């Protein structure tokens, strides 16, 4: 398991030990971040709410498998939520046009064609200003929508190498922005 802060480490221990009181804390700590991810995938609030609730149910029922997940608690939960959201899309048979939709949706919702910001939240504005749109998009596709490099390259018609270097650049930007350096 990776290094995590003390509070997270304690929560993980309580979760694995079957301490049910940890669930309210996990919900308070992560529900908004996960809901943001799920909403961007399924785009329908009622569906996103169901998926969020089911995500936390699975966090509980699958807690024994976290030890093998080898990621942070959040990325483990993120993958659960994302996979459920993607499964929903697949079952709704709309997955095939997802990237194309994504191109227009992200562009229109968050950044206008003239580059002006159409902010979801006030906080987001400062963030978006710091991260180029194409880098933000590739992080969304990989981490929040579960696309592989190859899928992005195929759907977007850009070389695989460009996908990788763009993702790499985006990650470096993120780390600089958040000052994450262990």
């Amino acid at each position, binding site marked *: 398991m*990776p*290094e995590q802060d003390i509070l997270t480490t304690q929560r993980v221990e309580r979760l694995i*030990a*079957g*301490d*049910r009181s940890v*669930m*309210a804390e996990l*919900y308070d700590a992560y*529900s*908004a*971040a*996960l*809901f*943001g*991810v799920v*909403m*961007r995938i399924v785009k329908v609030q009622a569906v*996103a*709410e169901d998926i*969020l*609730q089911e995500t*936390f*149910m699975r966090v*509980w029922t699958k*807690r*024994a498998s976290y030890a093998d997940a*080898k*990621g*942070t608690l*959040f*990325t483990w939960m*993120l*993958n659960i939520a994302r*996979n459920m959201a993607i499964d929903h899309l697949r079952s709704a048979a709309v997955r095939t046009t997802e990237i194309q939709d994504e191109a227009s949706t992200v562009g229109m919702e968050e950044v206008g064609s003239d580059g002006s910001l159409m902010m*979801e*939240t006030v*906080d*987001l504005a400062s*963030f978006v200003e710091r991260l180029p749109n194409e880098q933000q998009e590739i*992080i969304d596709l*990989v*981490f*929040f929508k*579960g*696309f*592989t*490099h190859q899928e992005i390259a195929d759907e977007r018609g850009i070389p695989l190498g460009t*996908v*990788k*270097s763009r*993702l*790499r650049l985006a*990650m470096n930007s*993120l*780390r600089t922005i*958040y000052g*994450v*350096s*262990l």
Partner: protein
Amino acid sequence: MTHDELRQSGLLELYVANACTAEERLMVERAAKSDPQIQRELDEIALSIEAYAQERAIAPPAALRTSFLEHFDNAVPVEKPKTAAPAVGRISTVTYLRAASIGIIIGLLPSLYLYYERADLVRERDAAQTQLAAAQERTSVIAQRASDLKTSFDKVVSENFKRITLPAVAKNDVASATVFWNASTKEVLIDARNLPHLPTANDYQLWAIVDGAPVDLGVIDISNSDAVLHAMKVIDSPAMFAITVEPKGGSVSPTLSAIKVAGKVG
């Protein structure tokens, strides 16, 4: 792939996103285990993503929190944390057993596949052998027939064979037969292809008239439609040949009223 190349490949990001293959996953985990730098890189990616997601968070409706906790309480019966551990163990055991049985089934799949494939191949081989045997039999039949025809042809064209035509006795009957008689060897061959088919209760029988008396030359086997010429009994000095319709198996003396065709040796 060196660890530096691994960092540049974007694979670490995919690993954190849980979007790489099992093989790539193993490679990354091996690298992370041997190189703390790789593990640190993975942690940094994960924490960046978490910070990014937190910044883009969308607060769910407040009622959803109450709804989830109620749902959780109903779905998960209250039990003491201490008893929760064995429960996990039980679940794990079942899970492992299930995984093991699935593993066994998956492990057997190639064998099953090979078994059925082999069974298919055996069936195909047997079918091919049957076809080959049938073809060989047809070939030998055809070779035998060609050999018979050549023998017949050789005899018919040799000067020693005399050709005697046997026209129908009845008026307007188109039936006929041709006898080939060898004056030196006394052999008798008959071409009976122009005789009409008989009821199964009857046979055609060939007679030679020698010194005014009929001599039996045998029943003509016309069941073998491939044969052109049939070898009959030898006869010394026939004056005439005649064919009668007789009961199955032939008669000792001809039924004169049933003479079908007849011809004098010229």
